[in-house]
C-alpha cells in the first residue's frame, strides 16, 4: 500500500501557502529598498576602528623623552609566533642595553598582538594601521625609524597598549 506512505498534499492549501510566501518575499525586498546601505565607499569613507584594534605593531614615542621606550630585551622577538621581529642590542657602559637594530617584516605579520603583550615597557603597541600594501618585498620590512613614525601617529596610546590581557 503505497498510498498510506505517500504524504497527502492539499493542492489548494499549497497554492495558498505559495501565494502568501511570494507576497511576503516581495514585502521583505521592498522594505530593503529603504534600508541603510551597508556599502562603505572605502577610500573616501573609512571604518571607525574599535578600541583594541590590532594593526601593525609600532614603537610610539614617549611624550617625556621623545624617543621610544624599547629597552632591547628581545621579549617581543621571542613571543612572535612567526618570528618576524629581530632585536639586536649590546650592553652599554652603564649596564643598560642599547638597541642597535629593531626590525619587523610586515609581510608575514599575523597581527596576533603577542609582541605587544610581551613588551615589559609597553614600548611596542598595536597601531591601527591596516593599509600595508607595498610594491616590493623589501618595502614591507620595517626598521626602528619606520616603526617610530608609525607609532607617532598614535602617540599617547602607549599606556593603553597593553589592554589585550
Amino acid at each position, binding site marked *: 500500500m503505497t498510498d498510506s506512505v505517500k504524504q497527502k498534499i492539499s493542492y489548494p492549501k499549497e497554492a495558498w501557502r505559495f501565494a502568501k510566501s511570494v507576497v511576503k518575499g*516581495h514585502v521583505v*525586498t521592498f522594505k*530593503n*529598498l529603504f534600508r*541603510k*546601505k551597508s556599502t562603505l565607499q572605502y577610500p573616501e569613507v573609512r571604518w571607525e576602528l574599535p578600541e583594541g584594534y590590532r594593526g601593525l605593531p609600532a614603537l610610539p614615542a614617549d611624550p617625556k623623552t621623545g624617543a621610544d621606550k624599547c629597552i632591547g630585551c628581545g621579549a617581543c622577538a621571542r613571543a612572535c609566533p612567526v618570528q618576524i621581529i629581530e632585536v639586536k642590542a649590546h650592553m652599554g657602559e652603564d649596564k643598560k642595553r642599547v638597541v642597535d637594530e629593531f626590525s619587523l617584516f610586515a609581510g608575514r605579520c599575523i597581527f596576533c598582538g603577542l609582541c605587544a603583550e610581551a613588551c615589559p615597557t609597553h614600548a611596542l603597541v598595536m597601531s591601527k594601521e591596516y593599509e600595508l600594501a607595498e610594491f616590493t618585498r623589501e618595502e614591507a620590512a620595517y626598521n626602528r625609524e619606520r616603526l617610530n613614525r608609525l607609532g607617532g601617529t598614535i602617540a599617547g596610546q602607549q599606556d593603553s597598549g597593553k589592554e589585550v590581557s
Partner: protein
Amino acid sequence: MQPTVMIVAAAIILGFILLVVLYLVYGLRKVMGWIQARIGPNRVGWEGLAQTIADALKLLTKEDIIPKNADKWPFIIAPIIVFVPAYMVYLVIPFGKGNGWVVQDLNIGILYVVAVLAIPTIGIITAGWSSNNKWSLLGAFRAAAQIISYDIPLVLAMVPAVMLAGTLSTQGIVNAQQGTWFGIFPRWFIVSQGVGFIIYLLAALAESNMTPFDIMEAESELVAGFNTEYSGMKFALFFLAEFASMFTVSAIAVTLFFGGWLPIHPSLSFIPPVIWFLGKAAVFIFVIMWIRSTLPRVRVDQLMSFGWKVLIPVALLNIAWTGLLVILA
C-alpha cells in the same frame, strides 16, 4: 505613410529604445543594489548615470569573436533576428493621444504584438544551434519549449481586453477605457481583469525570459544559455533586445489593463498623456525589477507544469468570465 516619414519614425523609435535601455540597465542595477542594501553604480558621471554608456562603449570596442566551429552566417544573423522583433513591437505602442503618438495605429495591433513577440524564438534557436556549444544548445531548447508554451497564456490573457474594447487596435483599446465609474474610479480594464493582468505579467516575464523564468540562460546551470558564445556587439544586441522587451511588456500591460495614456481621473488631464503613459510604464518596469530581485529561478519542470496546468486553464476561465461580462453589459 510616406517613406521619409517612416524612416524618421523608425529613427526616433530606435533612439528611444537606446535611451530607454541605457537607463533601464542603470535603473535595474540601482534597484537591485538598493534591495540588496548596496549603493549600485555611482562612479561614472553624476550618481553613475553614465555607467551604462561606458559599458556600451566597452562592449562596442571588444573583439568580435566567432568560434571556429560555429555556423558562421546563422551565428551572425541570430542576434539580429532577436533584436528586430523587439524593435518592431514599438510600431503599435500608443505613447499618447491621437495618431501623432503612435507610429502606426494598426487595426490588428494586439495580434501584431503577439505575432512579433513570438519571432525571437527563432533567433534564439538559431543562436543556440549555430554556436556549436552544448550550453548554448541546451539553452535554446529550453527557450523554445518555454516561449512556445508561454505564448498561449500570454495571448489568452490579452484576449479579454480585446473583448471588452471590441477592437484590436491599441489606440482603440485605450479609448475604450475612457471615463469613470461613480466619478471616482477609472474605467480601466484592470477592474474586471485582475486575474488576467497577473497571468499576463507572469506569461510576459516568461516570454521575454526574465527572472524568475530565465531558465534558458540560467547561469548556474548553463553558463549563459543561448548567448554563451557571443561577445561584443552581437552580445549587446541580445542585451538590447532583452531590455527593450522589458519596456514593451510594461507598455502593453499599461495599454491593455491600466488605461494607456489616460489620466487616473479626468481632473488630472492637464498632465500630458505621454507623461501618464511613461509614468505608468515606469511603475511596471519597477515591478518587474522588484520581482527579478526577489524570486529565485523556477525549475524547468515546474515552469512547464505551471504554464500548462495553471496559467492556461485560469486564463480560459478568465475569458469565460469576461464573455459573461460582455453579454451582461
